[in-house]
C-alpha cells in the first residue's frame, strides 16, 4: 500500500515538474471584476482566474479543493480585502503554501488597501451583524476606484514581471484614457440621477450611491448579513413610501422575497442590478457593467 503510494507520488511529481513552465503570469482573482481588470492591464502577458462567478456572494465561499489547486500555482492573488474574503481566502493561502503571494509580497494585492473606504465603524460587536471592521469592502462600484486600483496593479505587475513592465504601462495608459472618456460620458448622465431615492437590500451599493449621489432611504437588512425581518420591513414600508423611493436595489445573489414584498406593498419597482462582470469577462466588460447599471437606474428614474 505504502510502496504504491510512494511510487504514485513520485510519478506524479515527475509528471508535474516535467510540464513546461508557462511564461504567462497566473493571477488568482477573488472576484470577477478583478480578473477583468487584470486582463485589461495584463493583456496577453497574464492569465486571470476568478475564484467566484457573478451570481456568487463573495462573502460566503467554500475553500474548495479546486481553489487550493489554483492558488497553489498563482503568481499573484488579487482580491478585495477589507475582510470581504475572510471566510475563505486565509484558508486557501494556508493550504496553497505559496511563498510569493503571502501578505507583504507584491504578489499579495488587496485592492481595498489602495482606495479610501466608506462606512468604517467606530466600534464593532457581533450583535451588529456582519460588520466589516475595516469599512465597506464593495469598492468596485465607484469607477474612480477602478483607476486607482489599476495603477497599483500596474506597479505590482511590473515588480513581479519587470521584463514586461513596458507592456503593462502601455496597457494602463490606454485603459486609463478609455476609462476617462467613459467617466466623462457617465458624468453627463449623473445629473439626472442625483438624489434619486433608493432602498437597498444589503449595503453592496454604497460606493455606487456615493458616486452617483443617490439617496439611500434604507436597507432591507436591518443589520448587515442578517436576513431581513418582518418588523423591519414593515417600518421600512412607511419610510420608503414617504421618501417617494424610485427603486429597490439588489444583486443577483440577494434573496428576492424581501424586495419583491416591499415592491408590491409600496408599488416601487424592484431592480436587480448587475453586481459584477462575468467570470470570463473580456476587455471592455467593466465599462459595459457601469453602462448597464446606469441605464437601468435611469429607466427606473423615468429617464431613457
Amino acid at each position, binding site marked *: *500500500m*505504502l510502496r504504491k*503510494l510512494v511510487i*504514485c*507520488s513520485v510519478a*506524479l*511529481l515527475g509528471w*508535474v515538474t516535467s510540464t513546461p513552465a508557462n511564461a504567462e503570469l497566473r493571477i488568482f482573482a477573488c472576484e470577477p471584476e478583478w480578473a477583468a481588470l487584470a486582463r485589461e492591464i495584463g493583456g496577453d502577458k497574464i492569465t486571470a482566474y476568478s475564484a*467566484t*462567478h457573478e*451570481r*456568487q456572494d463573495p*462573502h*460566503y*465561499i*467554500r*475553500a*474548495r*479543493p*479546486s481553489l*487550493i*489547486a489554483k492558488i*497553489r*500555482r498563482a503568481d499573484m492573488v488579487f482580491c478585495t480585502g477589507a*475582510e470581504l474574503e*475572510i*471566510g475563505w481566502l486565509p*484558508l486557501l493561502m*494556508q*493550504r*496553497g*503554501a*505559496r*511563498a510569493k*503571494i*503571502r501578505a507583504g509580497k507584491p504578489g499579495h494585492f488587496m485592492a481595498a488597501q489602495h482606495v*479610501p473606504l*466608506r462606512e*468604517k465603524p467606530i*466600534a*464593532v*460587536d*457581533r450583535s451588529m451583524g456582519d460588520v466589516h471592521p475595516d469599512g465597506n469592502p464593495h469598492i468596485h462600484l*465607484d469607477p*474612480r476606484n477602478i483607476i*486607482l486600483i489599476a495603477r497599483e496593479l500596474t506597479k505590482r505587475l511590473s515588480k513581479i514581471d519587470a521584463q514586461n513592465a513596458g507592456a503593462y504601462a502601455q496597457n494602463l*495608459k*490606454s485603459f*486609463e*484614457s*478609455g476609462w*476617462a*472618456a467613459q*467617466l*466623462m460620458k457617465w458624468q453627463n448622465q449623473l445629473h439626472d440621477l442625483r438624489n434619486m431615492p433608493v432602498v437597498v437590500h444589503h449595503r453592496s451599493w454604497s460606493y455606487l450611491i456615493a458616486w452617483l449621489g443617490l439617496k439611500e432611504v434604507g436597507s432591507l437588512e436591518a443589520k448587515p*448579513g*442578517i*436576513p431581513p425581518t418582518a418588523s423591519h420591513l414593515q417600518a421600512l414600508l412607511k419610510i420608503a413610501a414617504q421618501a417617494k423611493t424610485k427603486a429597490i436595489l439588489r444583486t443577483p*445573489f440577494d*434573496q428576492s422575497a424581501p424586495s419583491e414584498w416591499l415592491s408590491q406593498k409600496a408599488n416601487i419597482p424592484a431592480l436587480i442590478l448587475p453586481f459584477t462582470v462575468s467570470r470570463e469577462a473580456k476587455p471592455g466588460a467593466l465599462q459595459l457593467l457601469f453602462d448597464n447599471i446606469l441605464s437601468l437606474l435611469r429607466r427606473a428614474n423615468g429617464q431613457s
Partner: protein
Amino acid sequence: MTKRYIRAVAAIAVPVCLASAPVAAADKQELQKILQEVQLLKKSYEDRIATLENKLRGLEQKKASSNKAATPASSSRSIKGNSFNPSIGLILNGRASSFSEKTSEISGFGVGEEGERGKEGLSIGESELNFSANVDDKFYASSTVAIVQEDGSDKIELEEAYIQTLPDAGLPDGLRLKAGRALWTLGYLNEHHSHADDFADRPLPYRVFLNKSFNDDGVEFSYVVPADTYIEFGGGVFRGDDFPAGGSASGLGAWSAFARVGGDIGDNHALRLGAYTLHTDVNSRATNEGAVTFAGKSNTYAADLRYTWAPTGNPKDKELILQSEFFHRDEDGIYNDTGATTGNVNFDGSSQGWYAQAVYKFAPSWRVGARYSQLLAADTPAGLVGSALDSAGHDPNTVSVMGDWTNSEFGRVRVQYNREELSNGKEDNQFILQYIMSIGAHGAHAF
C-alpha cells in the same frame, strides 16, 4: 474626517483620470475636443486640487501618527483575528439526551472511552478553548483545550497543541510541516473539531476505529502538487499513544500516509476523494473501561468522499452535502477480555465500518440531514466467544436524522434522533437536543 478624506481623494482622482484621456483616442477631432474639455476641467480643478492635496497630506500625517498611538490592544474594540495576539476563541456546547436503553455496548469491538454513547439527561459537551497565532514569519501555532466531564469531575484535555510552517518558512511551495499534537489527516471528520460536525455524535466507525479522533503526538508533512487538479499527499510519524495505538514502547509507534484529489464539476459542484492509512504498534491498549486489552499490530485503511452542490453557487442559501467514509482495520495480536475471563487469545482478523450521510440546507438558516452507519466485526476466534469481542453475527448499525437551525455562523441549535442497534436485539431510540455557540476568534472551516 474620513468623509473629507474620501472627497479629497475623489476630487484628485477624477481629473487625473481625465487628464490622460486623449492618449488613446483614435479620432483626431474627438481627441482635440476631449483635450480642450480636459484642459478646462483641469484648470478649474487645479487650485482646488492643490489645497486639497495639502489638506490630505496633513490628514494622512495626522492619521499615521494617531494610528501609531492607537496600537495598544486595550484601545481597540474591533473583534478581528489580528487584533489580539493570540486569537482566542471559545466554543460552548450543551445537550439534552434521552435514551430508551439503559446501557449501550457495541458488540464485537473494543471501544474506548470517547467512543461510548454520550451521557443521558442534561449535560454540557466539550467546551473548547482555542488559542492561535502566527509565531513569527515562519511558524503558526495553535492550541485547543477541551474541558470535559469524566467520572463526575471536570478534566482538561489537550486536544491540539501544534506548530505549523508558514509559506515563508523556506520550504518548497506547497509543502507544509506540522508538529505537536493535532487532529491529523485521516478520513474526513478526523481533522475537524467535533463542533463542526453535521450530527451531534460521531458515526460508528469513528467511535470504534479512532475512539472519536486520532490526535497522537507526532509530525506530519503534506504537499499540494502544482497542477490544475487538486492533488495533495502526505504522511506522518507519531508517538503511538493515542487510540488505535496504545502505550508505545519506543515512543515512535505509529505512522500514516494519505493522498487526496479533488476539483469542481461545473460552477457549483465540488468533489474530493481521499485514501488514508494508519499503522500502529500496540504495546497495550485498554478499552471497554479497562476490561478488554489488546497488544500487537493494528493497521487502519480509510477512504472518504465529500461532494457539495450549491444550486445557485451560494452555499449560504441552499446546499446539498454528501459525505461518506469507509474504514478497514487489520489487527494481529493478543486480545484479552477480563470481563469474560478469556485469558490471552491470539487474534488475526479484519473488521470494517462505513457511514454515508446527506445534509441539505433548504433555507439560509435551516438544514436537515440523514446518516446511516454500520460496522462489520471480525470473525470471532474460539477463545473470544461470549466476550465483548463476539459480535454473535450482528452488524451494529445506526440510523440518524437531524434538523438544525443556524442563526448566524456563530450559533447553531440541533435536534437529532438515532435508532441504534449496536448489539443483538437491542434497539436504542435516542433523542438529542444540542446547541453549539462560539465567541471570539473563529477560524474558517476547511472544505
